């Protein structure tokens, strides 16, 4: 399938369209909303399902020496991308050091929903992928936060450091974050129970998965649209541009590692997507603790309102096409 076909087909998928519906509803000021408890529950479901599936894949394929390597590469990327991001932001926008560091952290970390959407596209192309990429996703959540904190402290020594809060407690909090615990926990359970476990719960975690993803994307669209309505004025054109070109920078860094890591085509597409995706669930919460001085309207709007839709609509097909070129 050509990249244009892929992009068109992706744009006309229920997932992308439900996200667009959410954005449209928010911009029209509709009172359409997903209850908070339902949104939390859907997020939990998606992470449980994706973690479990990854674990089952690993149990099927057995331990792959490339797994450790790819995990290491993921950690490296998660740490390096914020440094690059910080540099670009400071060069091209007027954001201060603290805000720049906070934004950068989001791009070094990952968005599980972007990853999930990419798995759907990869599967739609008939490609398989390495199950351990779930583990890679999990380890990439946190290093970016550390990198951002170091950047912020170097730039503004007094910032990012409450009277009583050091880096230690913060990292502990981030590492025991619910989304990481359920992702890793479900991965391990999938690994342990393998295909027997999968046969028991697949009517719950596999069959309705895409439909539930649509509903969650509708909600994300609503939240993103609301954020855009509120936060758009916080975003200067260079910052919006950053939200679109920088994922391509991150994607390129990841793409360079695909061949050395020996990833499959599907795996490559997902690995590049991880690098290109920006967190909008775990990192925003962490930034409120680590860098409370940073303006949340900036980083949330940029990550959820600009980069997420870009990746969902055009980015992922592009990363899949690139993966087909280099790993195919």
């Amino acid at each position: 399938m050509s990249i244009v076909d892929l992009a068109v087909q992706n744009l006309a998928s229920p997932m992308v369209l439900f996200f667009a519906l959410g954005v449209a509803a928010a911009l029209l000021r509709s009172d359409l909303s997903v209850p908070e408890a339902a949104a939390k529950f859907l997020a939990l479901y998606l992470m449980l399902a994706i973690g479990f599936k990854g674990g089952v894949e690993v149990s099927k394929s057995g331990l792959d020496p490339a797994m450790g390597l790819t995990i290491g590469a993921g950690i490296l990327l998660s740490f390096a991308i914020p440094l690059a991001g910080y540099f670009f932001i400071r060069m091209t926008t007027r954001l201060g050091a603290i805000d720049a560091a906070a934004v950068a952290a989001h791009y070094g970390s990952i968005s599980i929903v972007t990853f999930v959407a990419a798995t759907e596209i990869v599967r739609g192309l008939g490609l398989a992928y390495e199950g351990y990429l779930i583990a890679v996703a999990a380890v990439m959540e946190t290093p970016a936060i550390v990198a951002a904190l170091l950047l912020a402290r170097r730039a503004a020594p007094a910032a990012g450091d409450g009277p009583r809060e050091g880096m230690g407690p913060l990292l502990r909090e981030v590492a025991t974050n619910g989304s990481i615990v359920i992702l890793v926990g479900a991965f391990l359970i999938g690994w342990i129970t393998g295909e027997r476990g999968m046969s028991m719960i697949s009517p719950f975690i596999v069959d309705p998965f895409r439909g539930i993803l649509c509903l969650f994307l509708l909600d994300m669209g609503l939240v993103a649209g609301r954020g855009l309505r509120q936060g758009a004025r916080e975003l200067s054109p260079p910052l919006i541009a950053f939200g679109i070109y920088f994922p391509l920078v991150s994607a390129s860094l990841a793409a360079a590692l695909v061949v050395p890591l020996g990833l499959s085509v599907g795996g490559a597409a997902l690995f590049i997507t991880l690098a290109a995706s920006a967190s909008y669930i775990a990192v925003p919460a962490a930034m409120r603790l680590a860098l409370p001085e940073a303006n949340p309207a900036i980083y949330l709007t940029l990550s959820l309102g600009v980069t997420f839709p870009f990746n969902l609509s055009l980015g992922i097909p592009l990363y899949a096409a690139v993966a087909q070129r280099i790993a195919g």
Partner: protein
Amino acid sequence: MEMHSKKRIEILLEAPAQKRLTDLLDRLDVTGYTVLPVIGGRGHHGVWSRDGLPSAAGAMVSVAIIVAEEKLDEVLEPVFELVRRHIGIVTISDVMVIRGERF
């Protein structure tokens, strides 16, 4: 009925910092606290709403503490020190309680 005069501190705080606040209250000498839900609002930082949020980021919670008048400052100072760095507001009001020795 006999009633005793106490102070009620209410702290509206961004939700990601809730644990920080309750951990602080555990260290301070307060007899208890109560966490109340909040569903939306507007302030200098703009409008917010819990609707559809998959995580604590972007939401707020409220924590109410009843303290004896003479302990007010002792509690208020470290609490305000924490809230100062976050999105949040602190209000204090008068309340009467029945079992005064409890607070």
